[in-house]
């Protein structure tokens, strides 16, 4: 479930180059505090240690492509984890320092606000903006945990959006966000509703790239293939997939298609593989996306890695297969 994102890649990347260009530190790039989560204090008095720790501390993914990157998260089939992906990838991006606007394009069954724990703060939606009841900046709900993350809902439940209008409205929205005073957001992430109805059309209209969420089962895959076809017809070329709810134990027993099987059927490059994780449901109940969990969980880490790849327009080079029995060292008892 991890691309071989080698810390010392052979293809030079700007962030790594910084490290390699300072030979004394390139060897110490790997943290020498392997059992703690604490990075070295960035404010060390000594200059050399400061640069070193800053380089390490500030390792950030390199934003590829033009901003704002308008990404639609879609699946075809319902309930495969689009909203979960939107919330977690969106907040991961915000934590990496990018400004993110998440758009809940699910008109009838919106629930992104619930996953983010922002449901009490949605007073206005895009429909009110269109009607002139409020301005766009008033409809954007800023997350207090990460203030560079904002949520916009398209409409309130039961309110009717003139169909065929949603797509245009989202294009205007992207335009308005681009030209806003505090600067264009880096990412506009659109949570697409299930199906290929009007809501789907609305959601994909402003998008330049798509993330296809699927689970490793045949029904979800067929819908995914169809949706990919429609996206390609619409001119969205950059489509990557996230395989969600993967169980390595079932793959091992041949009870579940492996991620590589899925890839063979769809022919899409992988943005991420998310394991089945009971924490997903718990975090939904809390309104606290998984990626904010401390200590991180398996699914949370996978979402973070997916977010990182999204930023760099990278894809996975290797996937996690079954679990190997771990050689238990003496200190493994202490979590080493």
């Amino acid at each position, binding site marked *: 479930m991890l691309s071989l994102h080698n810390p010392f890649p052979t293809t030079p990347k700007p962030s790594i180059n910084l490290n390699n260009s300072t030979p004394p530190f390139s060897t110490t790039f790997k943290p020498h505090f392997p059992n703690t989560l604490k990075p070295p204090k960035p404010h060390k008095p000594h200059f050399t240690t400061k640069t070193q720790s800053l380089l390490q501390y500030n390792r950030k993914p390199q934003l590829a492509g033009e901003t704002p990157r308008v990404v639609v998260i879609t699946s075809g089939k319902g309930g495969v984890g689009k909203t979960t992906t939107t919330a977690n990838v969106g907040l991961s991006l915000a934590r990496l320092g990018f400004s993110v606007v998440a758009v809940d394009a699910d008109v009838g069954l919106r629930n992104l606000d619930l996953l983010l724990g922002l449901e009490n703060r949605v007073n206005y939606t895009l429909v009110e903006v269109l*009607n002139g009841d409020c301005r766009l900046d008033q409809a954007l709900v800023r997350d207090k945990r990460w203030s560079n993350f904002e949520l916009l809902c398209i409409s309130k439940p039961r309110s009717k959006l*003139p169909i065929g209008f949603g797509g245009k409205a989202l294009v205007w929205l992207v335009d308005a966000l681009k030209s806003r005073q505090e600067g264009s957001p880096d990412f506009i992430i659109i949570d697409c509703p299930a199906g290929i109805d009007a809501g789907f059309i609305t959601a994909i209209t402003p998008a330049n790239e798509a993330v296809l969420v699927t689970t490793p089962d045949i029904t979800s895959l067929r819908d995914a293939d169809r949706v990919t076809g429609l996206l390609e017809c619409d001119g969205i070329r950059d489509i990557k997939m996230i395989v969600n709810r993967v169980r390595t134990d079932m793959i091992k027993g041949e009870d579940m298609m492996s991620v590589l099987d899925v890839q063979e059927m769809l022919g899409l490059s992988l943005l991420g593989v998310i394991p089945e994780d009971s924490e997903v449901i718990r975090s939904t109940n809390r309104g606290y996306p998984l990626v904010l969990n401390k200590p991180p969980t398996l699914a949370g880490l996978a979402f973070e890695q997916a977010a990182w790849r999204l930023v760099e327009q990278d894809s996975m080079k290797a996937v996690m297969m079954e679990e190997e029995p*771990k050689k238990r060292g003496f200190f493994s008892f202490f979590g080493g």
Partner: protein
Amino acid sequence: MAPIWTLQLHPISFQPSIWVSKHQTHLNFMKLRPEFRFISSSSSSKQLNRKFVLGANSGSPSDPDEPAVKTQTITVAVKDQLSKWHGTINSFPPLVFVMNRYGGRNLAIGLCIAIALLVIAVRVYAARKLRYRTPGSVADLVRRGQLRSDRRGISRPLMYEDPFNNPMVKVGKSNSTVEMCGKVYRLAPVTLTEEEQAIHQKRRSRAYQWKRPTVFLKEGESVPADVDPDTIRWIPANHPFATTASDIDEDLAQNNVYQKHGVPFRIKAEHEAMQRKLEALQSEQKLNNLMIDPRNAKDFERPFKEHPRSREQVEQSSFNNQTSDSMPPTSDPAPISVESNSSSEETQKL
């Protein structure tokens, strides 16, 4: 140590009385070890030598080969002089006492350490709990949304910057395994090539021909002349949440989305309409002594069924940017439209 050594050799030397008596004074004189003192005081009985051997032996617990010697002496005592059973019994209390003393000390030290550790653990736990539960700390303000955590530096930044190389994720040396959250997984390389991807794309482009609909018509409506029939989406008349009736002025809606400052369009329009009505009423009723003043105007709002707080709230929330958690849902400020009724559905409350 020397006297103890000699004492232990006594049972073997078979000259206990002499040696003991010889050394007894010496030991009494020393008074270093409390055991010895006790033994000498109990030596008033007849079987002094035997008893003393036992006592002396048990009185040197620091000696490593003590147990062997002890058992030896005991067996000797039992075998040789059953008649002196009483004496042996008499000699036991010192042994038990000494053993208890010594073992008891160990036990007490162990217990002390255990209790100390427990107290430390409980204290640490309580302190940690207290730190999270302290009522009324700034953290509560953050929780309630009054403060932004990132501005205050309360929310710690990401502890690790690299999700691919951190204490929870370690790629094995040969790049064939990865350790995540303490579990090691085998890695398999992705085999998808560009060509395969292109083949899939071609397959899909044959399988699915589609144009994104741009025109939405209710079933039964006639197709406009200049519209590609492929891009028409037919909506069932009873669609649950979609309406094709586009009575919204598109340009106006677009401008509304683009508006960056000032009072939102509808709020302004409503306010102006209200103002006009108010003026009309005033001239009608010739209330010339009443100044037209927003504060006085408020008194006239209610008869017109205006939402009394709508304007203020919009202005307030223009500062707040919807940050007011406390705003109850019942005070949804979407005003009742005066000019158009097109939005009656949108203004429905949750």
